[in-house]
């Protein structure tokens, strides 16, 4: 599977999810390009408290830190059994109940199309 990811048209660097300009060359022409959606878990946490009522109702809630094989690091919701650092994953995007497009990770080989349903019991998981 592949993901659309912002890249700098000038120097080709993949960008942080929230880039004003290219972090490498300060170019301002950022455009999406497909990258492989695979990566590894760098760290993870299981939350037992939340200030957001949406998540307070869903606790405990697991979040992972992912290093994509293509370079970028991202924080993502976890849709799987207990995560393990170093485990291979696939990253996808879903829409959370607040309408935000967010990242979610599944173990490599799992069905990434059901993630939205699994996590939030809404939608199909494909955005």
């Amino acid at each position, binding site marked *: 599977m592949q993901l659309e990811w912002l890249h700098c048209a000038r120097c080709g660097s993949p960008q942080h999810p*929230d880039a004003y300009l290219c972090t490498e060359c300060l170019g301002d022409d950022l455009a999406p390009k497909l990258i492989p959606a695979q990566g590894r878990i760098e*760290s993870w946490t299981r*939350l037992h408290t*939340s200030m957001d009522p949406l998540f307070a109702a869903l606790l405990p809630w697991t979040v992972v*830190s992912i290093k994509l094989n293509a370079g970028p690091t991202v924080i993502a919701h976890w849709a799987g059994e207990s995560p393990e650092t170093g485990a291979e994953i696939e990253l996808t995007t879903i829409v959370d109940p607040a309408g935000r497009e967010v990242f979610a990770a599944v173990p490599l080989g799992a069905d990434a199309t059901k993630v939205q349903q699994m996590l939030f019991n809404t939608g199909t998981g494909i955005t």
Partner: protein
Amino acid sequence: MPRIAILAPTTVPYQRRSDHASGWWIGRCLSEITSGLDLRKDQIDGLAISSLGLGPDGSAFLAAHFGLSLSWVEDVCLGGASAIAALRRAISAIQSGHAETVACIAGDGFSKEQFQKNIAEFSSRTARSIYPYGGAGPNLVFAMITRAYMEQYGAQREDFGRVCIAQRENASFNPHALFQKPLTMEEYLHARPVAEPLHLYDCVPPCAGAEGFLVTTTERARALNVPYVEVLASEENCNALPDESVQLHGGWDAFRDRLYERAAVGPRDMDFVQTYDDYPVMTFQQLEGLGFCDTGSGFEFVRKHSLTCTGGGLPMNTCGGQLSAGQAGFAGGFLGVVESIRQLIGCPLGRQVPRARLGLVSGFGMVDYDRGLCSAAAILRRADS
């Protein structure tokens, strides 16, 4: 160039909740500083302010609130690095002749609503790429860092517990600390989970309060006839290692050699250290980055060395640190500087570190997305030595 003195360590006692605005807390601290010194407020010509919840009222607006006419004002918005940054900017201002007597103050009120808003919107990246992942704020970020540190180096939960327990013992002598009751390892390990592997005692209790100090020339300090300390060296760094996928280093490694070279002392000369202890894992990274031990061995260091004021090891966060005293917004970064001054002039809130002559204080702040961006440190010395 004039020699610089830091004096008038001042704390406005913390409260768990407060209806008072941040500006009120800052003003109370200014009032304490002037009354404690027998200094007229028109003798202050510089003001450096740090506050998380001040809203639109920056240092210039506060000058008007407090009836100050100033030749130099500065807003220092660097989170837990603010105190050392304010100190450094005040020193530059005095040595450049822009001001002679600068009050550096941080203060914040505390309401649950404001706190939640601050956490959700701390930076644009945090608002978009951290908060939507569970609404946990910095607990999420430092849980990731703590687990990565544990798995990379082999630290155990007990190692973080040693920091919390030792600091609680230090806090037990500090009447201002929010938490003074001794903490046992049993209680630490069985506390409720917050963001695994972080549990309750790994997380600072947020509160309201203010901390401040005065920076001036040694000449002026002697005229005021109050004890003061001198700054041997200080450093700061922003965004040291952007490519580290999980933050296992702050920016201290980047300036450590220059810091000690300029101060002409080394880590082993320090009689105490005040780290920025928002989470215990960061105290390990500071002990490592500032040369008290090797990278990845901070947890082993605290197994071997007592951190209490009178334990004969390396006294750390001698008033209890933020983990026990509380984190009053950006005043959290001031706690270590104010306590260092107190230790060095011999009037601590809690226990005195025996024969304290040299101390190191460290700051860390501005958590953006998955890491803290600002690191700072200063080496302070008792003036009569």
